């Protein structure tokens, strides 16, 4: 095994770096077989790593070590410095100060290729796969100049079989479920025979069953002697999987613990530097509100090659009620959002009704005028214009309802006041309403985008992924505002992949799979496992069993 690692490394280096680079690197490789006596020594250790950006010290003298055969959690809120640190380890950036050691030797990767050649692999949160190419072609692109030939396909087949990652090398990636796409990324990473695998929020897109399968794979990798650096903010998951956790806050290491020995509340408090705000919805209030949103047998054919046809979707949301739609990404959520916002029109008006008015054929602005407001999942480029100021982004959806233009002329003062109210009311951390959307952190931008709609007092609010990639503090405050909004009589529909979130705030939950929507059931009658089964069961990709 160790010999093959070595072979893999040289093969890798040759393929990637061309002859000179490979020779240079090859000279300094310590044969992993020699590492035997050093077993007790950590695989990767960081000492005093600092990285400064013009405005912020992203990493401040970070020191910790990842042991061999260890799943090491790197925990922290958004903006705590996790991503920067991982980029330093993976060679995407270089530290300003400090040093790293890998398997006892100095480690200063100049590029990801360099890091991979030293045995550090990474599986990104957002996949970089070409939908129109096959699995083998995608992997070939990622690892070498060699084509997707029979030898590579055989290696893919062996590797995926060995780790319980079922994959067909000839399938087109566009036809794969998100869980399967993640397997492609993992197999691609494993083909390079890494000693250390960095995983960035790997479970955020998976069903509970897929998460179990992934954990089994990770445990098998560790049993083989590899180490995993696991980035996440899901505390329960870390407690189930990891044996060591390093917690970052504001660029510094603030704590390190064995997550199995600590409660989720305690770890959360370490992350936040205070107590974890808990959002818990009161057990189901009387749902006697008036019917505000009604979707009646909505069907919509896909327009994109890898899109999903919406088939016969029906759902009702009353005032004061929060209904959740669970599902694995790519099962029609984006199409359903398009249909609800009016970015795509339904075939008939009555397919969608707001307060009894048919809106299925009405364009987005007319729907907003009637009080149907929405928050899109993709914050930059869809819900907002990245390079535009917050007040201009406020005009984007609030212009009609807040009367931000007179005879076509923009009421700039009014628009600035409106954006200013959102910023103040939702505690958006920004340099003011002239700050561009792209300069806000994910959590702050999300607070702005949710606030932009809530301050327009919607009749119906449709929110996709309200807390995706948002830090714990911001997520709690967004949840609290949604609950307050429902309390004031708004009908809220939340489309989310985060089951914890849905269980925390929703009254009823439906599941979307392959463009079909199940009946929404009261939350106290369903279990996460049951939901997971219907999420995966109707799905094209059957849940993997390791």
């Amino acid at each position, binding site marked *: 095994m160790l010999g093959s690692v070595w072979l893999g490394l040289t093969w890798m280096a040759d393929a990637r770096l061309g002859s000179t680079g490979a020779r*240079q*690197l090859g000279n*300094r490789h310590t044969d992993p077989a020699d590492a035997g006596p050093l077993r007790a020594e950590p695989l990767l250790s960081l*000492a*005093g790593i*600092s990285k400064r*950006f*013009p*405005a912020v010290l992203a990493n401040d*003298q970070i*020191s*910790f070590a990842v042991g061999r055969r260890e799943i090491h959690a790197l925990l922290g809120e958004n903006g705590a410095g996790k991503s920067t640190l991982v980029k330093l380890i993976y060679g995407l950036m270089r530290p*300003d*100060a*400090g*040093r790293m050691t890998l398997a006892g030797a*100095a*480690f*200063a990767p*100049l590029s990801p290729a*360099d890091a991979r050649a030293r045995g550090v692999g990474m599986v990104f949160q957002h996949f970089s796969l070409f939908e129109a190419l096959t699995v083998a072609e995608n992997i070939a692109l990622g690892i070498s100049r060699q084509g997707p030939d029979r030898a590579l396909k055989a290696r893919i087949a062996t590797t995926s079989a060995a780790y319980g990652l079922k994959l067909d090398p000839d399938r087109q990636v566009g036809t794969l479920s998100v869980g399967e796409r993640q397997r492609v990324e993992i197999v691609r990473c494993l083909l390079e025979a890494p000693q250390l695998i960095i995983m960035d929020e790997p479970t955020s897109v998976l069903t509970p069953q897929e998460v179990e399968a992934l954990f089994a794979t990770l445990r098998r990798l560790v049993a083989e002697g590899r180490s995993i650096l696991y980035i996440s903010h899901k505390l329960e998951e870390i407690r189930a999987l990891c044996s060591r956790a*390093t917690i970052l806050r504001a660029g510094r*290491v603030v*704590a*390190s613990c064995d997550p199995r020995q600590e409660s989720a509340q305690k770890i959360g408090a370490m992350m936040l530097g205070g107590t974890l705000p808990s959002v818990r919805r009161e057990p189901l209030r009387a749902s006697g509100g008036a019917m505000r949103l009604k979707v009646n047998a909505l069907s919509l054919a896909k327009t994109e090659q890898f899109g999903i046809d919406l088939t016969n979707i029906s759902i009702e949301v009353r005032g004061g009620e929060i209904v959740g739609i669970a599902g694995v990404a790519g099962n029609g959520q984006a199409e359903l959002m398009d249909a609800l*916002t*009016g*970015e795509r029109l339904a075939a008939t008006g009555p397919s969608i009704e707001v307060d009894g008015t048919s809106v299925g054929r009405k*364009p*987005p*602005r*007319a729907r*907003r005028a009637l009080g149907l407001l929405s928050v*899109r999942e*993709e914050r930059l*480029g*869809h*819900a*907002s*214009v*990245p*390079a*535009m100021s917050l007040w*201009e982004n406020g*005009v*984007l*959806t609030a*212009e009609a309802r807040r009367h931000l*233009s007179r005879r*076509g*002329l*923009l009421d*700039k003062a009014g628009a600035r006041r409106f954006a200013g109210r959102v910023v103040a009311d939702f505690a958006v951390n920004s340099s003011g309403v002239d700050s*561009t959307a792209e*300069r806000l952190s994910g959590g702050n931008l999300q607070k702005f985008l949710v606030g932009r709609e809530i301050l327009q007092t919607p009749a119906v609010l449709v929110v996709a992924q309200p807390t995706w990639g948002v830090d714990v503090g911001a997520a709690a405050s967004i949840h609290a505002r949604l609950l307050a909004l429902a309390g004031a009589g708004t009908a809220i529909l939340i489309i989310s992949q985060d089951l914890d979130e849905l269980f925390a705030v929703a009254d009823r939950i439906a599941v979307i799979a392959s463009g079909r929507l199940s009946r929404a059931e009261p939350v106290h009658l369903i279990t996460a496992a049951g939901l997971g089964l219907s999420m995966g069961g109707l799905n094209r990709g059957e849940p993997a069993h390791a």
Partner: protein
Amino acid sequence: MLRLEPRLEPSRLMFYSAPFLAVALALAAGMVLFGALGKSPLTAVELIFLEPLRSLRGIAEILVKATPLILIAVGLAVGFRAGVWNIGAEGQFTIGALTGGSVALAVYPASGWWLLPAMALAGIAGGMGWAAIVAVLRTRCNTNEILVSLMLTYVAVLALSALTHGPLRDPDGLNFPESRLFQTGVPLIIPGTRAHVGFLVALAAVALAWVLLECHLLGLKIKVLGQAPRAAAFAGYSEPRLVWMSLLLSGGAAGLAGLFEAAGPVGQLVPQLPAGYGFAAIVVAFLGRLNPIGILLAGLLLALTTIGGEMAQISMSLPSATISTFQGMFLFFMLAADVLVNYRPRWRPRRTLAELEATPAKAPANAAN
């Protein structure tokens, strides 16, 4: 080794100073070019940049040249902001001159105060109509507006040539391929020169475009569509409508510019009327940062170098391609300088891996608690 590092946020300073940097670099490169041609660089630069400003006539000629450039570029800027790439302003300019000029020829010899406004309206309509072909094909058939508008330019130029050789030819013109002289001209703003009210119209267009882009909801919609088409869809801004609007605006402005050129300095329809203003205006639009005020300055600068370049060509016998090359350098350096808005140059010696690893840690290692 010189490296470019991405900036955390775009530099405001570089955004506004890049055009000046580009002009300075083009000037330096131009001097090298003139020197290589065996001419005195300093004399050439003086002739190009200062000589035209020394006489009223020179200044008036600058205004004559700048008028179509500014008028067209302002219209194009609106489209470019929306991500609608109308490259065929030259064709819309030509058709505008043709339709506007035809009005005068059709009513010949009748004339009056009404004739010029009628010609102007016909010119605008002609330019808009020509651009509408592009809009229909783009919104209905999803064709690429760059190719369609560019190819329509050649159709327009050939149409003008065919008509001035045929139906519109001056019956008393000894078979020269040109129309009658129009019975009305464009009022002059500097007596004794060729500078005409078209320049004032161009100034008004600059002001209108500024209000549209900076203060009007339509301007915001255009910018949103150009920067984030999906956000425009989410906000409910209709893409086809904005594509139509920006093509009609830029086509109309180019058509009006064509009419002013035909009715003003030229005074008739001739096959050589399309002299490249439509293409030069693209340079002006970008040099002016798609900002109406910037376009005003860029249009004047380009007109200045064109007039000065002609003077230099004559008195220093520079090859005629020199000035085109020189103006091309403006755009080239402009695009190059734009890199500095988002990137910062850093001089860093290339270090080997071994040296990097030998670098001692600057900070003392402190263990995690």
